[in-house]
């Protein structure tokens, strides 16, 4: 055995793209990446979407997803160049020497088979263990990963465990055949922050105890700082910086890495409440049609003109339901909503055009919030036409003004959504909301689907626009860093109730209730040793357990 387990040299990966109306052509998406990984070490691959990090991860199993082809370079695993191996040898490699943990465990498990069958499958298939040995090993791994009832959890089906538990089951699956290398592809990205901590800790301990080496792929530098020994920063298929974790976090050399480390540096002075709130949510209790379970219990919050109220909570806390009640999509069972001095009809149908105009919404997924068959000009122009009756040159002038406000400019007017990047799409959605000249905009997780640097730009734009247009935001998010950056008031929601409510400084300073404490402490911080500290100081179990 050499002292390097995985040796990647000058790896080049290409793909074929099919631009509409043009001939298909080959492009290179990874341009010569090299790194080494010693047994038992963890290398973090970090970068924004499109950086090629997942592609590199899969290449270490000699695999290219979709139309992706490995076009050059060498990948040595245990002293063999696997890119030159025959298919049979690669089959023994995958699931034997190298295993993989994907981002969405829910989409990766077969819903029709029991968890245990799937966890032991690779180990038995590779003849590493007998079925019995593999099951015993799986149970030991379940226990090590902190899953409840490790002896019997394997008899359940994937839908019978929570998302965080399933992600840990997948880690057990990957570790079961005693691999030398595990590729973790964004294993905690889809989880709530408090659950993320548990999974991270479980992964970290499992790596330490089994002595396996790992590639840890993520876009979140704070997360990777907790589990890695080395970090490689990637951008557009190139290595930006590669070094020990301590150096990357505390002393980054490259400008791009410095930007990643210092992201979320927006400062926002808290504004104090003015007399009249623009929106008052009073004693709202709501449930979905046909269910016997209240998703919101007696919610009371106020939003003041030109200010931002952040509604924070994890999935299932009822924060998006609150948005649906305010917009009239879900009439509440009890309570009322006062907006701009008048009581709104609980139902969308009963609202006047003026009500609708003054209350706009921006969605999490800009992709599906815009009609893919309409141009940017049509998308932004429609509210102008609909609410203000603008036509022709007048409308076009106003569309261009709005495009300038969102820093895109006139050349975007004839583009289709598919021709825009994620951040640009979200900007167009913001322009569409602004076009109605609203008093208030509901922002539902508007930055969650974006890369950190792009998200930062969007938040800055929103704050800028708030100053100019004097619009109020109801900002729904699970991300506390975002909340710190932009809010004036904060409502922390937990299981359909407002757990804590008040000005930003008040909500974010002690004494905390247990849930807020858990939530605040779960936000990954960009320093070494943070993870262990948090786990040691916890007062409350996370909701994932």
């Amino acid at each position, binding site marked *: 055995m050499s002292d390097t387990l995985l040796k990647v040299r000058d790896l080049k990966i290409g793909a074929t793209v099919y631009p509409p109306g043009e001939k298909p052509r080959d492009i290179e998406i990874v341009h010569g990446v090299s790194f080494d990984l010693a047994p038992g070490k963890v290398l973090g691959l970090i970068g924004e979407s499109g950086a090629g990090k997942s592609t590199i991860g899969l290449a270490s199993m000699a695999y290219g997803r979709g139309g992706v082809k490995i076009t050059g370079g060498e990948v040595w695993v245990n002293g063999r160049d696997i890119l030159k191996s025959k298919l049979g040898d690669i089959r023994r490699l995958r699931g034997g020497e190298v295993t993989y943990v994907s981002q969405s465990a829910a989409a990766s498990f077969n819903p029709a088979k029991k968890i245990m069958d799937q966890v032991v499958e690779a180990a038995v298939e590779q003849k590493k263990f007998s079925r019995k040995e593999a099951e015993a090993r799986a149970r030991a791994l379940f226990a090590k990963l902190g899953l409840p009832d490790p002896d019997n959890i394997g008899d359940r089906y994937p839908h019978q465990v929570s998302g965080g538990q399933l992600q840990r089951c997948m880690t057990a699956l990957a570790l079961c055949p005693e691999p030398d290398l595990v590729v973790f592809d964004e294993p905690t990205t889809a989880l709530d922050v408090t659950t993320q901590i548990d999974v991270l800790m479980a992964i970290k301990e499992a790596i330490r105890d089994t002595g396996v080496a790992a590639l840890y792929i993520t876009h979140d530098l704070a997360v990777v700082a907790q589990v890695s020994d080395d970090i490689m920063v990637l951008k557009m298929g190139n290595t930006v910086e590669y070094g020990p974790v301590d150096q990357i976090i505390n002393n980054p050399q490259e400008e791009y890495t410095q930007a990643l480390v210092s992201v979320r540096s927006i400062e926002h002075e808290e504004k104090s409440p003015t007399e009249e709130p623009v929106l008052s949510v009073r004693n709202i209790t709501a449930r979905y049609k046909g269910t016997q379970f209240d998703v919101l219990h007696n919610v009371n919050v106020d939003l003041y003109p030109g200010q931002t109220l952040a509604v924070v909570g994890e999935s299932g806390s009822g924060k998006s339901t609150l948005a649906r009640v305010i917009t009239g999509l879900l009439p509440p069972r009890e309570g009322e909503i006062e907006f701009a001095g008048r009581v709104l009809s609980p139902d969308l149908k009963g609202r006047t055009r003026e009500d609708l105009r003054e209350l706009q*919404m921006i969605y999490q997924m800009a992709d599906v919030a815009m009609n893919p068959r309409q141009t940017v000009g049509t998308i932004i122009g429609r509210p102008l036409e609909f609410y203000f009756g603008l036509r022709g040159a007048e409308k076009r002038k106003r569309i261009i003004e709005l495009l300038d406000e969102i820093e895109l400019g006139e050349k975007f007017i004839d583009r289709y959504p598919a021709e825009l990047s994620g951040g640009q799409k979200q900007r167009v959605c913001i322009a569409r909301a602004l076009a109605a000249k609203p008093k208030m905009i509901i922002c539902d997780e508007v930055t969650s689907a974006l890369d950190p640097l792009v998200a930062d730009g969007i938040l800055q734009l929103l704050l800028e626009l708030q100053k100019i247009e004097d619009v109020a935001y109801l900002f729904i998010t699970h991300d506390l860093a975002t909340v710190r950056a932009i809010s004036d008031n904060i409502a922390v929601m937990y299981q359909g109730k407002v757990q804590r409510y008040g000005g930003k400084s008040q909500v974010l300073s002690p004494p905390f209730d247990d849930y807020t404490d858990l939530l605040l402490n779960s936000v990954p911080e960009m320093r070494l040793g943070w993870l262990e500290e948090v786990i040691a100081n916890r007062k409350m179990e996370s909701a994932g357990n």
Partner: protein
Amino acid sequence: MKNIPISALVGLFFTALYFLGAIFAPLLAPYGVGEIVGDVWEPSSADYLLGTDNIGRDLLSRMIYGGRTTIFIASAATVLSFTLGSVLGFFAAVMGGWVDQMLSRFVDLAMSIPTLIFALVVLSVAPVTIPMLIIVMGLLDSTRVYRLARAVAVDIEVMDFVEAARLRGEKTAWIIFREILPNALSPLIAEMGLRFIFAVLFVSTLSFLGLGVQPPEADWGGIVKENKEGIVYGIPAALIPAFAIATLAISVNLVADWVLNRTTSLKGGRG
């Protein structure tokens, strides 16, 4: 329009040929549709390229005029069924609730009766004219289109951009024609090709059974019926319309396939 695959080119060529033949039938046909020009079942010759039929009419002329009738009825019925079926399907998906229930259950009921028998019953009481044929075929076929349109629209209807249009206060007509229709077009167009072929087969079947286009008007199914006895004597006159129906079916499908591939590969880009 670059990079048209060879199969689509073949399909386009033959489809265009048939449609042009239908449009310019009076200019192309050497003889009149009911004109008796020769003996019974003459073999093909320089005068009668495809020979003559069971009472001595020129078969080529009857094929061209027959194609005109068949294609016209099938096209009109397809247009009717798509207009009706897709508008109602979208409407049901957008409104939901009892509107959707009523329409969908009614369509289920209509679909539970075999189409051919339904059509035969209706046409045996109603006057068999071309407009009547189009209406009956269009209405019966619209149930299939309704189901597809509703299924496609239900998926689109839950997208955020439709919700955004609702929150803006848009009317149902805007949501159907501006938000849903452009996004449902590609599966509908592919289905349209298929439905057109079914309509061709359907009208031919009806004519063959004597409840479709009435003599002396010609249509492909009718020509098969008139000449079917000839097969016993080795006369191929009945096979020619069958061949025409088959080639038209294949070429329209090749075109529909290509349209489907082209529009779906755009992944939500321009249509």
